[in-house]
């Protein structure tokens, strides 16, 4: 049983970055088919409530972002940032003042016209003290939001932030007079909320007053499952047309060689980390961390969990981030080298440590694998299985751990290695400086160059062991087209989906 919907999985950390994207054709092209169709979507990420700033979680992003709610900007499926509710914007030469002009004729589902006051309200909803938004820390630089007229929003920053516009793509614009956003909505997107049957499904209906291109289907139903087998059965019995993110590697074989289904191997940003506590012995020594990293055969681990899917990365940066480089050779799998590094670190006889392991897949299996790999270099691993809640309390907040396993879901999150107070305790002043400079860069090239240096440095320091990058597998009926393929920010734009 998956626990991916847990709040902690995603140390949903907002990456401080900019907008230049990677390019590759995303979504399958949608053409033909009826515009009166209902698309049945299967997912394991049910929202807790419908408000992203009140702990709604990943499920809100998946079902509502881009579908029901829209931002000033939109993060496309291939990672580009495009104008959405912002028709245009200007940045002052010092990079501290952003002036946004809003699209005209945009109406909320309740009928009210979008104004700059709604935008101000929505951003403040994210940054407020009460907000539980994972993106909150991305906006610390905002010092003032002004609304000189209905169509203009002027935001003043206290320091340059090259990723400001990218970060704004995560802010849903909501009617400033809307009530009870936990169970209802008032957004500007191509769909309005139909019914939410908790524990079961959430339906969206095409909004006839939409300001942009109308959705290509009439209705979308997100069907929620807590059991991966039940989800796959639903796909096999055609109760759902598409699964947003396949979590059951074993089940893929029944769709792989079946012409009725398409298995799409998209791009994910979820990394599985063996995170050392870099502040405590023996992992305060770079050589020890390198030894451990070289002693684990990541390729074998990945194939035993995901078969032919997934990617090895060798660092925190996935190929979809602009500052990606293949760093898998920095700490190669080499048991002899690992033994030598361990001896050089003064621990020729090995040592024993406790690995805090979250109790949901794939962590327990990965822990067992690591244990058997490290036994080969004389290192003994005691596996301590904990719940997600304990992980957050013990590891993330109290830093009471030696090493842990965790998946990190966000894109552009290498910048966390620039924060010496983050849970893994990596503290390299040079890296911290590069990360700070990168955020204050004036060009994206400058930012990219700096973050590449960061990436290489953390790999050389073996700050953590980046075991592998998850695959993002969307399985769909072959009759379906126009669905998103990549798992960027967990969003799932449904408006281009067409059923033959």
């Amino acid at each position, binding site marked *: 049983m998956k626990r991916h919907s847990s709040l902690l999985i995603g140390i949903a950390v907002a990456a401080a970055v900019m907008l230049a994207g990677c390019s590759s054709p995303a979504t399958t092209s949608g053409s033909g088919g009826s515009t009166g169709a209902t698309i049945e979507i299967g997912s394991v990420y049910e929202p807790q409530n419908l408000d992203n700033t009140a702990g709604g979680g990943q499920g809100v992003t998946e079902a509502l972002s881009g579908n029901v709610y829209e931002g000033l900007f939109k993060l496309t499926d291939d990672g580009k940032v495009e104008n959405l509710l912002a028709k245009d914007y200007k940045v002052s030469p010092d990079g501290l003042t952003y002036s946004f002009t809003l699209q005209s004729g945009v109406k909320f589902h309740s009928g009210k016209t979008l104004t700059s006051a709604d935008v101000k309200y929505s951003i403040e909803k994210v940054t407020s003290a009460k907000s539980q938004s994972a993106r909150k820390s991305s906006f610390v630089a905002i010092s003032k939001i002004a609304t000189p007229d209905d169509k203009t929003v002027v935001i003043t920053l206290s320091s340059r932030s090259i990723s400001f516009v990218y970060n704004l793509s995560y802010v849903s614009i909501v009617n400033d007079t809307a009530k009870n956003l936990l169970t209802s909505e008032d957004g500007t997107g191509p769909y309005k909320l139909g019914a939410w049957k908790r524990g079961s499904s959430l339906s969206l209906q095409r909004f006839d007053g939409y300001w942009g291109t109308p959705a290509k289907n009439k209705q979308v139903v997100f069907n929620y499952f807590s059991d991966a087998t039940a989800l796959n059965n639903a796909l096999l019995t055609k*109760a759902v047309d598409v699964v947003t993110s396949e979590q059951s590697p074993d089940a893929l074989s029944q769709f792989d060689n079946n012409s009725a289904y398409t298995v799409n191997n998209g791009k994910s940003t979820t990394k599985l980390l063996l995170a050392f506590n870099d502040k405590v012995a023996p992992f305060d020594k770079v050589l020890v961390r390198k030894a451990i990293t070289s002693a684990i055969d990541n390729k074998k681990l990945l194939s035993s969990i995901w078969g032919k899917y997934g990617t090895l990365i060798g660092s925190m940066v996935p190929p979809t981030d602009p500052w990606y480089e293949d760093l898998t050779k920095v700490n190669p799998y080499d048991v002899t080298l690992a033994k030598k590094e361990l001896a050089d670190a003064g621990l020729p006889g090995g040592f024993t440590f406790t690995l805090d392991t979250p109790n949901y897949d794939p962590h327990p299996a990965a822990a067992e694998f690591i244990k058997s790999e490290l036994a080969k270099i004389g290192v003994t691993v005691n596996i301590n299985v904990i719940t997600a809640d304990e992980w957050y309390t013990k590891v993330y907040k109290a830093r009471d751990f030696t090493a842990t396993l965790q998946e990190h879901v966000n894109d552009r999150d290498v910048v966390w290695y620039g924060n010496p107070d983050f849970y893994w305790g990596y503290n390299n002043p040079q890296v911290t400086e590069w990360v700070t400079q990168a955020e204050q860069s004036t060009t994206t090239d400058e930012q990219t160059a700096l973050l590449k240096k960061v990436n290489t440095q953390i790999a050389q320091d073996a700050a953590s062991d980046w075991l592998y990058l998850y695959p993002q597998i969307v399985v769909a009926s072959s009759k379906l087209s126009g669905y998103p393929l990549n798992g960027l920010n967990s969003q799932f734009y449904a408006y281009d989906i067409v059923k033959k």
Partner: protein
Amino acid sequence: MTTYLLRRLAFLVVTLLLASAVLFFLLRLLPGDPANALVSVGATPEQIAAARHHVGADQPLVTQFVTWLGQLATLDLGTSYISGLPVGPEIASRLVVTIPLTLIAFLLAVIIAVPVGFIAAYRSRKWYGLAISAVSQLGIAVPVFWIGVLLISAFALSLPLLPAGGFPPDDWADPVGAIRSLTLPVLTVAIVMSASLTRYVRSSVLDVIGSDYLRTSRALGASFASAMWRHGLRNAAVPVISILGIELATTFLGAVVVESVFALPGLGSMLLKAIAQHDYPNIQGILFVSTFAVLVIGFLADFVQRVVDPRLRDSISGNRVGGRRA
């Protein structure tokens, strides 16, 4: 009878109170801090403290318990830490799945088990009597999820007759869809439940068949059918009824497995999720409602038994709690 009812009512209230205390304090022994759910990742200690204060998690446990009891008295089950939504309405929306599932499965199991168990006892030496006995033994041994998986594989995947899981978004406003969705889960539960009930019915009827009074009745010229009808069935029913109460309660609580296999939005799946998320208000609410249901079922079983068996009516017994024979 009035004294009896009053005693039972008092017993119900005391048990509920005790159960609430046990579940409230046991939950607090779980490691971790549920207040984590209230704030964003990377919240400052002040923000966490404020959030804890907002939901009252900073109060002493006893105070929290008393507050919760106070809410219960006004039929308010509190607000979920995770979703920020009230617990009561969600439980109610889940019960429209779990109660029909449990009750229909229960009725079906009784309809199957009573005649089948009777035949197994009446013809215990014949091959089919033995076969029933053997099959029901097998039914007890097989885990409920496995029956569910088999039924899905047969009637949803191989023969696409019924849905493999899920429940219509419109609930019972779509009665055909709701019934179709519940068919396989109901069958799954009924098969397992009828297997064990059959065995109880069989042994109860066997006892009666071997009894002196039945032999006497037949010696006085009654046919087997008439002796059974006038004397046997009522006697055989008494132990079965108390088992029925326990079976019904077990099924209600055990719905969690079936609901998971069939992706049903019932109480069980809500409980499973609440436990995984350490959502105290939700867990407490569900367990409280379940405890209440189990106690009411126990009471009903006891009451029906008294109606069936006049001997019990004479004793104002408070010692036959939970519908069990002392």
